[in-house]
C-alpha cells in the first residue's frame, strides 16, 4: 500500500528521532478536552507543553505536512505524510493543532486564493497564530445554504456587511472568519461571494448558543455595518458558491474520516460487561449483546471503508463513490454507538452533574447528547442522502 523505498526509510528514521527528541512527555498522553490545542491570538494554553509542541511542529511545517513549503507547510509527499502519521501514532503523540484553518480554509485558499492572500494567511494558519471560524449557516439558510441573506455591498473602497450567521463554531474565540455573503440579490447561487475578515472589526458580535449537552461551541454571529477591505474577497465577485461547495467537501471529509469518535473513549462491550454483567464470558443480556455486536460490526465495516477510500485515493484513482457515503454512515454509526452506550450504562448513564455519578460516565452522557448533532452539522443526513442519490446514483429531481 505504500512504497517503502530506501529514501522513505531514511525519512522514517529521521522523523522518529526528531519526534523522540521534540515531543514533550505530556504530549504523549491522552488529550483532555480542556487541553485541545486550538491556538490563535487570544488562546489560553492550559498546558505550556502544548504550545511548545505546536511551535516545534509548526517550525517544520508539520501541522500541515503536505502544504507547500512556500506557505509554511511541510512539503511532504503523501507517502512521507503517512510515515509521519505512523510515527506520531507510535509514540501516541497528540495532534499539535486543531484548526479549521488547516482542515477547511487552507485547502480552498491553496486552490482559489491569489498569491497575496496565500502568503498573508497560510503561514499563520500553519503556526496556529490565527484561529478561524466559518460563517456559513443562517437562521433561514441551513440545509438550503444558498438561500443565505447576509448582505455585502460594494461601497467603492470597501465592502459593507450586514446580516446574521448561526452555528458559527467558536466565533466568540476566533480571530478571523471565512464568510459567505450575498453580493447579488437577484440571483441565488450566482449571487454569493466568499470573504475573509477580522472578528475584531467594529460591528461584529458573536453570542454563544447553549446546546443540549450544556456546551456552547457555536455562536449566533451578528454583523452590523462591518467594513471589509475589498482585497479580502477570495475568488471572483459572485463566484463564492463554488468555493463554498469545495470547502464543504473538505469539511465532510474531515468529519467522516474521524468517524466522530467517542468522547469518553470507552469501549461499548466493556461498558456492557461492567454494567450488565457476564454469563460465561458473554454479555448477560442476549438482546443487548446481539445489538452491540451488530453495531461493532458496522463500526468495523465503516473503518474498513475509510481505509479502502484512502487506499483508492492514494492509488491515484481519485475519490471513488464510496467516499460520498462516509459522512452519512459516520453520523448514523456514532449516534447508534452512543445510544447503545447509554442503554448499557442504565441509570449510571443518566447523570448530568454532581454527586452519585462517575465523571467518565457523565462525559459519555454529554457525548451522547453531542452526537445528535452529527447528522445535522456539515450537511444533514437528509442532504447527504439527496447528494448521493443525485450526484452518485444519477437520480433526477421531479421534472
Amino acid at each position: 500500500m505504500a512504497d517503502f523505498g530506501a529514501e522513505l526509510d531514511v525519512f522514517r528514521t529521521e522523523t522518529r528521532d526528531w519526534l523522540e527528541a521534540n515531543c514533550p512527555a505530556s504530549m504523549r498522553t491522552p488529550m483532555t478536552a480542556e487541553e485541545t490545542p486550538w491556538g490563535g491570538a487570544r488562546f489560553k494554553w492550559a498546558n505550556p507543553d502544548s504550545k511548545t509542541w505546536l511551535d516545534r511542529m509548526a517550525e517544520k511545517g508539520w501541522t500541515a505536512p503536505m502544504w507547500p513549503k512556500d506557505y509554511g507547510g511541510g512539503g511532504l509527499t503523501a507517502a512521507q505524510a503517512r510515515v509521519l502519521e505512523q510515527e506520531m501514532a507510535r509514540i501516541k503523540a497528540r495532534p499539535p493543532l486543531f484548526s479549521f484553518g488547516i482542515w477547511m480554509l487552507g485547502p480552498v485558499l491553496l486552490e482559489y486564493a491569489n498569491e497575496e492572500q496565500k502568503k498573508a494567511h497560510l503561514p499563520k494558519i500553519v503556526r496556529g497564530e490565527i484561529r478561524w471560524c466559518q460563517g456559513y449557516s443562517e437562521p433561514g439558510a441551513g440545509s438550503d445554504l444558498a438561500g443565505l441573506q447576509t448582505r455585502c455591498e460594494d461601497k467603492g473602497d470597501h465592502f459593507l456587511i450586514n446580516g446574521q450567521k448561526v452555528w458559527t463554531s467558536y466565533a466568540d474565540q476566533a480571530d478571523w472568519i471565512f464568510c459567505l455573503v450575498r453580493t447579488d440579490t437577484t440571483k441565488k447561487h450566482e449571487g454569493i461571494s466568499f470573504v475573509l475578515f477580522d472578528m475584531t472589526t467594529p460591528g461584529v458580535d458573536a453570542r454563544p448558543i447553549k446546546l443540549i449537552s450544556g456546551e456552547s461551541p457555536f455562536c449566533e454571529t451578528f454583523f452590523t455595518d462591518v467594513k471589509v477591505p475589498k482585497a479580502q474577497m477570495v475568488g471572483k465577485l459572485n463566484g463564492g458558491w463554488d468555493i463554498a461547495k469545495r470547502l464543504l467537501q473538505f469539511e465532510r471529509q474531515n468529519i467522516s474520516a474521524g468517524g466522530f469518535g467517542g468522547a469518553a473513549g470507552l469501549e461499548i462491550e466493556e461498558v456492557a460487561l461492567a454494567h450488565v454483567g457476564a454469563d460465561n464470558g458473554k454479555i448477560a443480556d442476549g438482546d443487548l449483546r446481539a445489538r452491540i455486536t451488530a453495531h461493532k460490526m458496522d463500526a468495523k465495516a465503516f473503518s474498513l471503508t475509510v481505509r479502502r477510500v484512502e487506499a483508492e485515493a492514494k492509488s491515484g484513482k481519485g475519490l471513488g463513490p464510496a467516499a460520498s457515503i462516509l459522512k452519512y454512515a459516520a453520523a448514523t454509526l456514532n449516534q447508534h454507538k452512543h445510544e447503545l452506550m447509554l442503554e448499557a450504562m442504565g441509570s449510571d448513564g443518566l447523570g448530568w452533574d454532581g454527586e452519585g455519578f462517575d465523571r467518565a460516565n457523565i462525559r459519555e452522557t454529554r457525548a451522547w447528547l453531542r452526537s445528535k448533532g452529527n447528522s445535522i452539522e456539515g450537511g444533514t443526513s437528509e442532504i447527504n442522502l439527496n447528494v448521493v442519490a443525485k450526484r452518485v446514483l444519477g437520480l433526477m429531481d421531479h421534472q
Partner: protein
Amino acid sequence: MAILNEEQTMLRDAAKGWVADKAPVTALRKLRDTGGWKTGYDPAAWKEMAEMGWTGVIVPEAYGGSEFGYRSLGLVLEETGRTLAASPLHATAAAAASALLLGGSDAQKETWLGRIAAGEITAALAVDEGPHHHPGSVALKAEKTATGYSLTGTKRFIPDAAEADLVVVAARVSGAPGDTAGIRLFLVTGGAAGLTATPLHAIDNRAHADLAFAATPAELLGETTGAGWDVLSATLDRATALLAAEMMGTATQAFEVILDYLKTRTQFGQLIGSFQALQHRAAKLFTELELTRSCVDAALDALDAGSKDAPALVSLAKAKANETLHLASIEMVQMHGGIGMTDAHDAGLYMKRARVAEALYGSSSYHRDRYAKLGGY
C-alpha cells in the same frame, strides 16, 4: 382516540387543561434553573394536583380515593407526560399506592392510602440497587428486631425518594440475590434513623436519589408473613404500565411539535413537510405511536380487569413505549435541525427524559426477555 367513560373523559380533559395552564415545559425549565431538581416539584402545583383528586385515582373510596382505576390514572399521567410535568405523582399515587393497595394490611391501608389520596404525603418505591432494573436481584438486608425490622443496604436512582414521607422498600429476609422467595416489602418513613438520601442531578431534572439504609427501622408490609415477590411483581406491573402511559404522552407531544414544524419551516422555497422522505418518516412515527397506544391501553385495561394477561401486556407496553419515545424524541431533534440541538428548544428535554424513562422499571431488552419467558420461549 380511545373509548372512555364519562368520568374518564372529564378527568382527561381536566388534566389536559390544567397541564397546559399550570405545568407547561417552561415550568420544568424553571425548576431546573432554580435548583428545583433536588425536590423535583413545585409544592403549589403538587397541591393542586391533589386537590383535583389525582393522588386518589386508584385508591378505594373507603380510603378517600375515587377508585377510578389504572386506566384513569394513565390518562392523567399521559397528560402530565406531554409537558414533562415534574411531580411525585407517579411515585406516590401509582408506584407506592399500588404496593399498599396490593400488599398492605387493613391498618396500613387505613394509615397511608388515605393520606396519599388526600395529598398529605409523598411516597416512593425503592427496588433497584444496580444500574439496571432487576427486581429479583434485591440484596438489601432486612433483619428482625424486637419491634419490627431493621434494613441495611443501598438503593440506586429512586424517583422522588429524597423528600418522600414514606418509602416502600424491597428487601431480603433470606436467600441470595436471584432467589425471589426471600424478598419482602417494607415501609420506611422519611427521616427514619440511619436513612440517608443523596439527591441526584439527573439529565431529566426530576428528583431521583440514592438511598443508604444503616440499621434503619422498618415495618413489614402486609400481615404476619408479609408481602413478597407476588405483590412486588404486581406492584411493578402497575408502576411500569403507568410510566408507559406517561411516556406515551411525552411521545405524542414530541410528534405534534414535529408535525407543527414540518408545516411551518421552509427550505428551498418549500415547507419541509412537503419532502417525501420526511413525510414517510412522519407517517412511520405516527404508525408506531398508534401501535404503542393500543399496547398501553390494553395493559391498563388488563390491570383494571385483573386479567392474567396483564404481565405480558405490561412488558409489551413498556418496551413499545421505550422504543417509540426514543424514536419520537430523536426525530424531534433531527427534524428541527440545528435548532433542535439548542438548549432553548424543548427537543433535548424530551430526549433526556426518554432515556431516564427507559431505564426506570426496565429497558426494552428487559421487557422483551420477560415477554419471551412469559410466552415460554
